[in-house]
């Protein structure tokens, strides 16, 4: 209710400012707008922006402060409205013939632009902030050595849980390994074929087709794992070979995730292979090397750092992937080598500990934040390393 009134009044002030500022500017110039320093529309904008920014700014600060000092909501809205009014009056009375309205408006717009850019930083701070505190609370209730080095994961909502991360980490790494074992050779060879061998027509058809794979949401891959790949692997591999009866398994999730990563690896490798200068190819071909010898002996060694970077990025994706493993890998935490057994990952457990009825005081819920920060640090490390390698590689040929 307060909100509606506030926003209506704020809109009145802003729109009113546009017109009144304009009118006063024209009046100040005695009807001859050429006398003014700035165009009349800037005078209008100046008043409107001053009122709007003051109002919204006070509202945001007040809204944030009330979390800590508990101000009643109507006080905040009233204060914000008063601030908007003050901004309006201040900007309005400044209007005269020599007032530099354009510069003032541009300063305010610049402030807005900077504020928008800083959201990127705020997001990162928010991510870290949201996890660090809860992780701290978790470690005050549960020993960190047990968390990082424990080999059993059996949460129990009545207390006395074993919350060892190793089985989850093992599942994550095992699945990521299979995914990369599928995606890296296929993606790399596909990129080589498309950039070095395929005729323009084949490239024109095959490249977009492979890129479609990249645009498919992960939930679709998850469902694919659940209804097609899982049962297929169980019926034709796991059961005949006596390796297990579960449709959800490391292999299911790994294979499907591998398919998901193919376009990722191939488009990154494609960029990197194309960055190797043509003169290098000519040099090798001119000596009588076949195209494949050129690729293996000249292009690959030259592109290797970039490709390693691409693989690291793919690995970071695989580790952070959620929906495919939620639907394809299973929920049982175990340390096993059999790829046809169901295992679970860090991301699956974050989802399962934070959905449903959660009690933010118990270690069983808080552990999700510790898992989250582990995941964040792991993927961040891989990303930073990969981006660094790729950037160094690019500089080499620029």
């Amino acid at each position, binding site marked *: 209710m307060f909100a509606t009134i506030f926003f209506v009044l704020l809109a009145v002030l802003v729109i009113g400012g546009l017109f009144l500022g304009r009118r006063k500017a024209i009046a100040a110039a005695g009807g001859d707008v050429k006398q003014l320093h700035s165009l009349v529309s800037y005078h209008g904008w100046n008043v409107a922006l001053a009122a709007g920014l003051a109002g919204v700014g006070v509202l945001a600060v007040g809204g944030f402060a009330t979390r800590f000092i508990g101000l009643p909501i109507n006080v905040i809205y009233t204060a914000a409205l008063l601030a908007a009014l003050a901004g309006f009056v201040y900007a309005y009375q400044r209007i005269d013939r020599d007032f530099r309205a354009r510069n003032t408006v541009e300063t305010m717009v610049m402030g807005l*632009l900077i504020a*928008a850019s800083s959201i990127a930083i705020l997001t990162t701070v928010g991510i870290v902030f949201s996890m660090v505190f809860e992780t701290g609370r978790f470690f005050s209730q549960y020993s960190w050595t047990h968390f990082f080095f424990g080999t059993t994961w059996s949460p129990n909502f009545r207390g006395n849980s074993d919350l060892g991360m190793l089985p989850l980490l093992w599942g994550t790494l095992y699945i990521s390994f299979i995914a990369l074992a599928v995606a890296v050779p296929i993606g790399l060879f596909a990129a080589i074929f498309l950039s070095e061998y395929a005729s323009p027509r084949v490239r024109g058809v095959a490249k977009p087709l492979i890129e479609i794979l990249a645009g498919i949401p992960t939930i679709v891959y998850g*469902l694919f794992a659940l*209804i097609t790949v899982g049962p297929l692997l169980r019926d034709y591999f796991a059961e005949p070979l006596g390796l297990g009866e579960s449709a959800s398994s490391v292999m299911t999730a790994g294979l499907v995730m591998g398919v998901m990563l193919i376009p990722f690896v191939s488009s990154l490798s494609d960029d990197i292979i194309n960055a190797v200068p043509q003169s290098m190819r000519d040099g090798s071909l001119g000596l009588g090397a076949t195209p494949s010898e050129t690729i293996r002996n000249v292009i690959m060694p030259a592109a290797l750092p970039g490709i390693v970077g691409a693989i690291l990025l793919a690995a970071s994706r695989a580790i952070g992937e959620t*929906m495919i493993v939620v639907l394809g890998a299973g929920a049982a935490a175990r340390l096993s080598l059999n790829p046809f057994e169901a295992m679970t990952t860090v991301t699956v457990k974050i989802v399962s500990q934070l959905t449903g009825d959660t009690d933010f005081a118990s270690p069983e819920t808080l552990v999700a934040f510790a898992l989250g920060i582990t995941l964040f640090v792991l993927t961040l490390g891989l990303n930073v390393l990969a981006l660094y390698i790729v950037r160094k590689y690019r500089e080499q040929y620029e």
Partner: protein
Amino acid sequence: MTDAAMPPAAAAGPSRKPKKSLHVLDDNTRRRNGAERRFRILGGCAVGTGVLALVVLLISILSAGLPSFQQTFLKAEIYLDPAVLDPSGERDPEAISKILTFSYSPMIKGSLTALAEELEAQGAENLTPKMLADMVSGAANAKLRDYVIANPDEIGKTVEFEFLTNARIDQYLKGKVTRESAALDSRVDVAQLNAADELVASGAMEKRFNWDFITAPDASENRPEAAGLGVALLGSLYMMLIVLCLALPIGVAASIYLEEFARKNFLTDVIEVNISNLAAVPSIVFGILGLAIFINMMHLPNSAPIVGGLVLTLMTLPTIIIATRASLKAVPPSIRDAALGVGASKMQAVFHHVLPLAAPGILTGTILGLAQALGETAPLLLIGMVAFVRDYPDAPPGGLFEPATGLPVQVYNFTQRADPAFVERASGAIIVLLVFLVIMNLVAIILRRRFERRW
């Protein structure tokens, strides 16, 4: 000019081996050509595998999901008894909607009994009224009630109504339930299947396109036949609106600052590194952010599109910023110089000239960012959008704070239910999602083709 082709003689030493014709392949070349061929085939196989994976994926989703757009109905005449439905006789919609679904049961029972008798007279052997009642979905009452509320004038008349059948009968008509599986299933028996055959033969039972799948809200665990995507679609729409309204202006503003105004200093370096890292942070981490900041700290409601929209906005921002900066960069500096040269301020040059020229690229990037956000699932799980929601949220802005689900989360929701009929629903929901994604991508491609400008 230093290019030089060297006739071999230039390098030839004193020893002259017998000349070999170029027209004859020597063994070494033959061996190397074999390796070349194998390498090439390997490359072709890799591309083939990728394309094959795409085809298998699409076929498996389509074949599992397309039947969900059809549903089995049982047609029967029903007398809408005014004594029950509208005791006051004023056809007042409010009074009619006060009648509980429970009150419709005797009417439906009567209608089905009449149908059974009629068919028996025509020579059907396996039908009993009870059997027909068992075949009709538990959701049929509510559907009939909705129909009556929408058409109060029909009260007192005998109308032909299509009763939704239960999921087992529906799956039998779609070939997923067999007599063998029915024998093991407590919710259907072989006699019902025989009866269904007779009903189909008599024309009383048939499959038809089912709009309700797209518009109806979710249904309970035991009624997969009634479950629809209405609430999920609305929730996704709300979230996309929020993403569009927030991510586009913020993303464009941030890009303008970073690309046009920012001086190279520590702060802008930090921002740059931040943006490229945010683009690669696992989506589930954004879910944790949403849960901790928006729900636990700011006390926004659980399961609400506003929270989902905010989280997806933060996820989409890097995509939009990267695309916008690329298209700003593509505008040649001569345009800026020209504007500055006639006395425009830097800000005017950017807003009057550079931004309009970069607009198509920005729009394309935004659409692709939205498409990515539309399919995102994991973060929404953590902010409670998996909840079972039956009521449509109101129109914005109020509706943004009411519980809803999203299309991809609804898919996840369907997969978590025990009844196998939900697999079909999940795949059907995926098809709807993919249709939206295809449309969005096509629009982006068309925009790019139409407005692509080469300087």
